[in-house]
């Protein structure tokens, strides 16, 4: 039975250049002099070191913990001594240095105590996700999103189809193909674990039809009963079939909504290498400390795939494959379509590094770009069905509203447009520029909004205070003015009572004064007694005033 497949718009048939790195079996790369573990090898917030300089660590030991929900811990990829925790250059398009733990290997490559999960099927999905999170597993296809999050469909979503992406559509890269050839059963086991975590109904492993060996080997390692819910599907070789949205479209005919996630249409997509890594975590208890990396390019004598300890400097891998530095223009991390140049080769390989590609000196950027002639070849190949020629126009004009109206943020930066452009315009660069500018503008706007809000609150506060003060003054004045208390409120009744009491006191004093007038004809003794009383009274009155002043 042939499964029905769908098409996505555009795409390219690219020269594959895959054979060169697939002739030799995968071998482990030599232990380097230094292992550099950046704290951010994933999407999310950086990990936080939990070891100190001078500490001895074992292979597989956690050296940094996840700082937040969207984060991933980092594990030592060999045993040795932590010799530094400092900022190091990392291979990332931004080129910014990152806090990294540097380990000097002791050469023993000694594992820490491993805790495999004996029977994952007995484990609750959330407990399973915790094991996977603690092992530092992130998407190994390139993006590096923490896998445990993508294994959590959420309470409101049912997963119909779990897709394992083995398309590997970029030229030159073969690490997934080699993994599928050498460890097919691990991939299937990993997939079954993922299926359990997601409670997915169907599973598909998708492979481009140029990987016949991998396809056959995977099919052969499939057990009888698994074939009911697990299909291994060969898809046409067309770039970028390995793009998540494109692959889902090919396999299901459904489109992931713009600004949405695959789970919105009941699909979850993981990379085959991620599945293999999860298999190792569960079955062997080994966290993510190594991966397959393709080291290839025209200026290497022995292009091949290596099993690499994460954190190994790029230069060690290149040298292991007979690199001819003098003929190399630049070394890319990733493939020719979406990779980026590595600014310095002592930078480490990270969890998401799938390929080191040495490029000879025939780069497109050495050719001057011509004006756009609006030929529309870019639009014809765009897998997102965008109009690259219009977006280019508005990016150049810095008209960022207009370029968003042309759905800039649906661009997946696959590079098809720039590849076919007769004017050799670095289109993707323009789109990245526009995206960055828009993000920066949004941040600025957020900041400005925040500041404005604070300012407005302050003005409001001052205004309120002023009003309250005025109100208080007004009330006081009214109180003073009020001669005839109207007993229509509690306060007024009180006021009236006080007033009445004061009136009574006044009247009493008046009578007393009057009575005083009747003591004119007193004898001396009586006079003295009265004076003494008056004095005492005076003293008491003074003391009372003091008391009032200093209560």
């Amino acid at each position, binding site marked *: 039975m042939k499964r029905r497949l769908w098409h996505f718009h555009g795409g390219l048939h690219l020269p594959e250049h895959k054979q060169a790195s697939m002739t030799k079996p995968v071998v482990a790369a030599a232990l380097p002099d230094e292992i550099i573990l950046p704290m951010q090898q994933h999407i999310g917030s950086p990990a936080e070191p939990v070891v100190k300089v001078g500490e001895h660590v074992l292979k597989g030991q956690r050296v940094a913990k996840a700082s937040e929900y969207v984060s991933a811990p980092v594990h030592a990829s060999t045993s040795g001594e932590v010799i530094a925790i400092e900022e190091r250059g990392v291979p990332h398009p931004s080129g910014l240095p990152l806090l990294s733990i540097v380990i000097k290997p002791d050469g023993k490559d000694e594992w820490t105590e491993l805790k495999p999960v004996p029977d994952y099927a007995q484990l609750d999905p959330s407990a399973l996700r915790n094991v996977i999170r603690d092992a530092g597993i992130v998407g190994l296809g390139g993006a590096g999103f923490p896998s445990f999050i993508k294994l959590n469909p959420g309470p409101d979503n049912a997963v119909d189809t779990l897709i394992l992406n083995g398309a590997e559509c970029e030229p030159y890269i073969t690490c997934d193909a080699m993994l599928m050839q050498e460890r097919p059963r691990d991939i299937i086991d990993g997939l079954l674990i993922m299926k359990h975590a997601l409670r997915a109904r169907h599973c598909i492993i998708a492979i481009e039809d140029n990987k016949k060996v991998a396809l056959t080997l995977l099919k052969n390692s499939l057990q009888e009963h698994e074939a009911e819910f697990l299909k291994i599907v060969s898809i046409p070789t067309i770039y970028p079939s390995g793009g998540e949205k494109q692959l889902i479209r090919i396999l299901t005919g459904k*489109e992931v909504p713009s600004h949405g996630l695959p789970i919105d249409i009941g699909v979850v997509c993981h990379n085959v290498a991620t599945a293999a890594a999860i298999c190792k975590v569960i079955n062997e208890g080994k966290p993510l400390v190594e991966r397959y990396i393709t080291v290839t390019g025209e200026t290497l004598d022995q292009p091949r795939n290596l099993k690499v300890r994460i954190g190994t400097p790029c230069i060690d891998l290149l040298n292991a494959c007979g690199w001819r530095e003098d003929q190399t223009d630049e070394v890319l991390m990733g493939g020719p379509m979406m990779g980026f140049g590595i600014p310095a080769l002592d930078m480490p390989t990270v969890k998401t590094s799938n390929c080191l590609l040495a490029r000879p000196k025939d780069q497109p950027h050495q050719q001057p770009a*011509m004006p756009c*002639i609006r030929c529309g070849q870019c639009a014809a190949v765009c897998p997102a069905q965008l109009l690259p020629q*219009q977006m280019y126009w508005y990016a150049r004009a810095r008209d960022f509203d207009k370029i968003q109206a042309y759905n800039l943020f649906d661009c997946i930066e696959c590079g098809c447009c720039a590849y076919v452009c007769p004017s050799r315009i670095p289109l993707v660069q323009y789109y990245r520029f526009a995206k960055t500018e828009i993000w920066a503008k949004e941040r600025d706007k957020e900041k400005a909004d925040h500041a404005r809000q604070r300012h407005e609150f302050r003005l409001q506060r001052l205004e309120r205070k002023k009003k309250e003060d005025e109100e208080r003054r007004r009330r006081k004045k009214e109180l003073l003015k009020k001669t005839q208390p109207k007993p229509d409120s509690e306060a007024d009744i009180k006021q009236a009572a006080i007033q009445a009491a004061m009136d009574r006191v006044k009247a009493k004093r008046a009578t007393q004064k009057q009575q005083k007038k009747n003591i004119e004809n007193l004898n001396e003794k009586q006079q003295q007694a009265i004076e003494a009383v008056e004095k005492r009274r005076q003293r008491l009155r003074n003391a009372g005033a003091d008391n009032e002043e200093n209560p």
Partner: protein
Amino acid sequence: MNSQQVHSSPHTPPQNSVTRLMLAVVFAMLPGCMTYVYFFGWGLVINIVLAIFVALATEAGMLRLRQRPVMPFLTDGSAVVTAMLLALALPTLAPWWLTIVGVTFAIVIAKHLYGGLGYNPFNPAMVGYAVLLIAFPREMTAWLPAEIHHMGFMDSLRYTLFETLPAGTTFDTLTAATPLDTVKTELGLDHTLDEIFTSHAGLFGGVAGRGWEWINLMFMLGGLVLIYMKVINWRIPLALLGTLFIIATLFALPAPDIRPSPWFHLFGGAAMLGAFFIATDPVTAATTPRGQLIYGAGIGILIYVIRTWGGYPDAVAFAVLLMNMATPTIDYYTQPRVFGHEED
């Protein structure tokens, strides 16, 4: 290794170039041009050579004046294509100044004053042609009938340079109106198509103008090669020719005496050259898939309308220029549905 420079992906060697596209267009025009020479003599070759020379000279001059790099733009081939299209639109016997005026106007005003390659809203060759047709109607409408071979290469050259004709001939005895022009004029005099085809038997061939039908066929073949090479896409030619065919059929069926057949429209004038080589000029054409269909169909309709009820016997140039004006609007309203978005 030049490790300090970091470039944006993709990092692939260039696959394509403007020069490649333009040269492909030039080569695809050659079969049509050769057929043209076979039927109408060497005048076309002289016109093309002169036009290319003038186009490159004015292009270089304008690039220098505009302080742009000369060589990358001079070698992009766009000026050569403009020159060839304009030369093909000129009568076979064209004095030198006619070609120079047309090409200069096309390159200087229609192309560079609007910003050069990629920025001109109107097809430069068609602007040059329209200017000539309006300014010099007599020179622009006097064509040789097909297969008059007593104008050899030297005779043609002599005419181009000095406007002198071979002994014993006059301009009026040599030249005639084009088949399209003849049909239009005679229909205006209330003659039926049958009468016209009989009275001007030498002008007409199997389905359309004598010679013209073969030239059109060759341009069509060249155009199909361009589609196969993905230099142009099929939408504009198909929409243009399809619309022209349908509308001509609709009008010819009830009135075959006074409305020429669709074949006459497709193969009688510049329809094939226009559909595959002029309307597909990427700079001035619509760029969205649906927009290209609308743009092509619009040109097809305008060609028929102008030919049938307008003042000019052939109408490709005006139809293209009119639709050039509509291009930004068409593009704006025909944006394709983006992946993952709902249909509007």
